[in-house]
Structure formats: C-alpha cells, structure tokens
C-alpha cells in the first residue's frame, strides 16, 4: 500500500514530512545543541548565534527544548492512535461474529464513549490514575476508539455478507481463520486511513492536554507545553509561539494528507487511479491528441 501511496504527489509529501518528524522523535534529543533543562540568566532572549530560536522565561534554549520535546509529542500521539486501533477495531470486527449480546454491548459502549465530554473525562481519569503522559494518552486512545470500532465494523459487515466468506464458513472454516484470511485484508485500508487521521487528531489532543498542563510533568518539554508557556510572554516575545505552532500544524497536516492519500489508493477505484497515473507516467510521449470540437 505504501508503494501505491508514493505514486501520489500528496502521498510523497506526507510520507516525507512524517519521516522527518519520525527522525526528530528518534534523534531529536541527541540533536539538541544544549541541555534543554539548563536554566541561565539570559531569559527571553531573541534569536542569536548561540540560541537559534532564542531562550525562554528561565533562560533555556528554545531550539533544544523543541528538539528534545519532539519524542514525547510524537510518541504520545502514536500511543493514542495505537490504543484507539486496538481498543476499537478488535471489538468492531468481532461484533459481527460474536452474537447479538456482544454486538449490543459494544455498540452501547461506543455510543457512550462518543457522548463523553473528552477533556472533562481525561481530567477526571488523570485525577484518579495520576498525572502522567501514559495515563493521559491511554484515556485519549480509549475515547477515540469508537472511530475504529465503527470503521472496522462497517468494513467487516460488508465482507461478512459476501458469498466467498459465507462459503468458507459453510465449509467449516473457523471465525478466526476467516477474519485473518478474508476480513482483515478488506478492513485494513479503511483502518489505515483512520489510523493516519487519528495520528493527526492525537497530535492535537496531546498538544491540547500538555497545553493545559495535563500529561507531562515539568520541566519536560513538549510542543504543546512550549506553546502554552510562550503565550504568557507574548508582549516580550511575540514571535516565540510560531516555532511550536508550525511544527504542530505541519505534523497534523501531514497526518491528514497521508490519510487522504491512503483513502485515494485503497480499494478497486484506488488501484485503477494508481494504474492510470502509472500508465501516464510510463508513456509520456504517447499522449493522445487533444480532442477537437466541443465536449
């Protein structure tokens, strides 16, 4: 599927940006030119040769804090996406096969999770479990899970009614085998779209929570946390929120772009689209002459 995504220009852009973000998450803390926690007397300084993005209210190097904070920010949103995937898609697929009681219970649970006010629920659970990034992201993942539940259930329902699946079941195949062999490959494309979309959504949520001081304990930097603290010093450094805000925006945009590309290339229509693009790319000099006359 990745090969098909790379055929599209939007897919290539999204993958390139997300690859850079992934590299930042992996190596950002090592790339930080200075200790991101080291305070100095040089507070709220402008950009300079020694501090490319200036310093914050405690005299810490902003570039180092951005680089160091990339890992927590990215891992947090990944945790949201993976938690939502597991918590949502597994019962979503199984709800089609495990009987009416299981279906009814999981549907009501999904409805309940959708109805819960997200931030209030997150704050309440964190008050119970303690303030930490893992707890915050797990809670968030559970709240986003209904998206995966509905997507995977809808895709499974479509496959479950197909004749070859019914034939497999009639021939004595187990539900597990049918899910692995026939259902999963059909469910995977819409789930991949949802996953890419959730990564972007998760990033906004992680940033919002850390903006509110939930999830990450100071002085650990995150992009959302940096944005929040910069807003308190706008009259001193009006440009300061730009760097974390741009990073958040670009990452979320790349996640959404990837989701669009995945949607475009999945299914039969997507395969046809990719094939037609390939054909056009392979035979650039054999293009048909422009039609004459009106349409």
């Amino acid at each position, binding site marked *: 599927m990745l090969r098909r995504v790379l055929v599209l220009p939007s897919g290539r852009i999204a993958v390139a940006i997300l690859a850079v973000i992934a590299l930042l998450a992996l190596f950002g803390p090592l790339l930080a030119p200075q200790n991101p*926690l080291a*305070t100095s007397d040089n507070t709220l300084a402008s950009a300079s040769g020694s501090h490319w993005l200036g310093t914050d*209210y*405690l005299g810490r190097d902003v570039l180092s804090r951005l680089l160091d904070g990339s890992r927590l920010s990215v891992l947090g949103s990944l945790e949201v996406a993976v938690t939502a995937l597991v918590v949502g898609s597994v019962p979503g697929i199984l709800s089609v096969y495990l009987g009416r009681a299981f279906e009814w219970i999981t549907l009501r649970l999904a409805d309940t999770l959708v109805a819960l006010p997200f931030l209030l629920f997150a704050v309440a659970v964190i008050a119970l479990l303690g*303030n930490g990034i893992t707890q915050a992201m797990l809670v968030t993942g559970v709240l986003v899970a209904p998206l995966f539940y509905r997507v995977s259930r809808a895709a499974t329902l479509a496959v479950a009614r197909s004749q070859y699946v019914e034939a497999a079941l009639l021939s004595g195949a187990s539900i597990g085998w049918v899910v692995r062999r026939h259902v999963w490959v059909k469910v995977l494309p819409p789930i991949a779209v949802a996953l890419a979309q959730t990564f972007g959504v998760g990033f906004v949520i992680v940033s919002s929570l850390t903006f509110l001081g939930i999830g990450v304990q100071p002085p650990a930097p995150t992009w959302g946390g940096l944005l929040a603290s910069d807003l308190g010093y*706008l009259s*001193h450094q009006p440009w300061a929120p730009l760097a974390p805000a741009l990073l958040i925006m670009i990452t979320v945009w790349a996640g959404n772009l990837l989701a669009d590309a995945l949607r475009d290339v999945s299914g039969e229509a997507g395969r046809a689209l990719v094939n037609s693009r390939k054909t056009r790319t392979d035979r650039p000099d054999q293009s048909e002459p422009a039609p004459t006359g009106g349409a």
Partner: protein
Amino acid sequence: MRAAALGTALLTVLVPALSACGGDAAAGSGNATLKWTSSYFPTHWDPVVGGSGAQFRELALVYASLTRTDENGKAVPDLAKSWEYNVKGDRITFHLRPGLKFSDGEPVDGAAVKAAIDRAKKQQNSALFGDLTSIKSVDAEGLDAVIHLTQVDYQIPQLLGERVLQIASPKAAASPAELDQNPVGAGPFIVTQLIPGTKVLLKKNPDYWDAKNIHIDNVELTSAPDAATVVNGLQTGVYNFADIEPNQAQAAKKAGLEVFVQPGFNASNISLNINKAPFDDDKVVDAVRYAINRKEFVDKLTFGYGEVTDQPFPKGYVAYDPKSENDYSYDPAKSRKLLAEAGHKSGQIKLDLVIPAEDPQAEIVQSQLAAVGITVTIKIDKNWATPFFAKDLTFSLYGTTGRDSAAQTLTAHFGPNGPLNLSSPYEPSGFEAAIARVRQTPLGSPAYPQVLRAATRAGLRSKALIFTYSQPNLIAKSKSISGLPKNPAHIDWTGVTISGTR
C-alpha cells in the same frame, strides 16, 4: 475688560457643570460599575469556610468585620466603633455602631458577633477555628460583644478584621450551605446574582455604615480567564480592574492601562517536612538553605516588581527582623560541603517536589538543587491540598498573602499546628514563649516592635521553611478608576471613584 468678565462668568457656570460630568457624576447617576476579574475568585462565599487566604478581598465586598486595617496595617474601627480591654488583658469588649443591619434586615449587634465567632469555632468545615484559640467565649450585651480570652492577648483587634471575622447575618448563616450560595453581610455591597465559580453581580449597599464614601454603584466580579487574555479584556473594556501576573505588566502598560503594586505581605516559601528523610538530618536542611539563590526567583518571575525575602514579612514592616537578614545567604559550595559531611554523594538524594499546578518556581528550585547534587522530580498533584495540610508531603512550595495580625502570621508558619508548617507538630525552640510575649504586649507599647521582632527571630529558627521572594500584588486598571487606599494586603474601595462609565 468685557471679555475678561464674560470669561469669568462662563467659568463660573461651566466649571461646576463640567466637574459634575466627571467621576462623581458617574457615581451619582448609578452607572459607576467596577468590572473586576480576579484569579482569586472565591470558591466559597461563606467566610467561615473561605478562611483567611487571598479570597477574603473579594468576600470583603459583601461582608464587614469588627475592625479593618489602615494604611499602616493597624486595626481601626469598622462595624465596631471602639473597643477596650480589661486591666488584666484577658477580656475585650467591642462596641458596635448603632442602627446597622445586614442586607436581609437582621440587626448587626452583639448577638450577631457571638454567632459569627461561635460558628467559626464550631462549624465542621470551618477554616478559621485554628485562628481563634485565644477566644474562650463571647457574651452578647445589646450592641456590645464581650469576648473572654483563654490567655492575655492584645492581638484580638488585629485578628478580628476582614481576614478572620467577616460577619454574616446569623439568620442566613443558620444554613451554612445556603449562605455559601447566597452571601448576606453588612458590607459595602449586596449580592444580586451569583454563578458559583464564574461570576457574581453586586450593587451598592445603602445601609453600609460608610456608604457615603462608597462611590461605586455596581460590581461585576468574574473569575479571571487565562492570564494572557486578561490584558485584552481590560483593553476592550470587558473588565476595568484585574490582578495580573508580572509577565503581563508590560503588555498592560503598552495597552494604556495603569499598572500598580498594592502593598502586601506576600511571601513564597519552600516547605520541608523534617519528620521525613532526608530532612530529618539538619545538615541536609542547611544544605538546601544555602543552595537557594533568592535573587533568581525575583529576576525571572517578578519582572522587577518583587523582592527577595527571607522572612514572612516585607522589609520595613513592624515584624520584620533586620537581625535575621541573610542568615542563610546563597553559598552553593557550602551546601555541597554540608551534603558531603552528611554522607551524601552528588545525585544520591532524590526528592519529589509536589505542587498543585505548573509553577516556574518549582523549575528554579529544581535547577538550583541540581547544581549542588540533589535530584528533584516535580510532581503535579491536583489534589495537593489534602496531603499538604495533612502534613504528608516531604517537600513542597507555598505562598502566603500574610495576615493582619503579625502573631497570626507567625503561628500559621511556625506554630506546632500552623497550617503552613509542613513539619507539625515541630516548632522551633523558644518560639512558644516568644509568641506568648507578643500576645501579652499591648500594640501601643513602646516595647511591642522589639518583642514582635524577637518572635520573628525565634520563628525563623524553624527548619521547616525557606522563604524565597515576595510576589507583588500587581494590579492593572482602567485610568477611569481613581487610586486605591494603600491598605496593605487589602483592596479597599472606600473613596474610590469611577469616571466616564462605558
């Protein structure tokens, strides 16, 4: 000549007319509205539950007390027109002003005072009972309230001011839960609408004893939004008065607002629990004391508006003890030496600094202690108040806005049951005797300042507290509001006018 006469005539007519269009006109027309947004919006409107913290300033809009403080911090008459002690000093009689009533029509008399004190001492959720240990009983005799004391205590007029005894109508207070939602007092304003935690609307109380000096007709008090947006609200006229963070002062000034510091008794501290390791070792406590660079707090957090302090009082205040100044000045080398003597290698001591919300102070403490080899992990606990006041924490931060009675400030910090003493029941040696001498010394006695400073000195021997800096009471207001009385730690609306209402 004729022109001069005409000018004089015009001035004679126009000056009174134009001046009537100013502040007094706004007040007189019933449109002088104070739009105050506060980061200390009361969580409780029952003063007994609210306690004597910073929120008393907002509650003082509704409730009056027996005494108030003047610009020197000295007790002066409020609901009580006068008071006197007996010869021995263990009984004080307050004489209330005649003809006063609460906003529900109940009389303000000795019985109301007795009810207020009894409630503060006995109500289950009272935050004040610890402040009233000197009071044995109260007799109501018409407009007199006779207070019998458990010990000689000349601090009572200071104590029973707005911080500790805001007096509610006894009829309304019969149901404390209802009072918490519908406050009824005899203060300068009456509540007309209260949305808990969000907003309260008030109008001038025509029956307030000093109503002639209250020139504000209406008050809209709101809970402050994010600090960064308060200045915008002031600029656009949503508010005309707000307490602001020091990092917003520059923006407020640029917006054409008046920024000023209201004098106060604010003092931030680092709280240690010496009943728990590693602070059960005096050398570790001293090492932390020497590791703290107070100037860094002032430079980075107050933007030039605060000052360093090593005491719970500002310099120049009667209780401030110059002899205790710089007892533990910043000396990281000495700190490392003490830690080594105590047998701790660098990085061996690991501490959790538990605080209620994100606070740059904590990050400064963390970096300063890291410099001497103590590893600090900051932990935010939204339920921080419970373990802090139960004295379960080992290491925390606190900030006080002070008390009107210096003795109360001292006992709150250093007394064996002081709410701000994280090491209860510990108290420094000699403190109990020193504070008893303060209570026994009349406020007007020439010896009082020396006796009080000696108690401060005794208290500062406490190993449980390291005072760091004084956070300013920074306020931004519209220029249409006249200057406030410089009543330390209070916000007093007496004589304040608002001109050109929006």
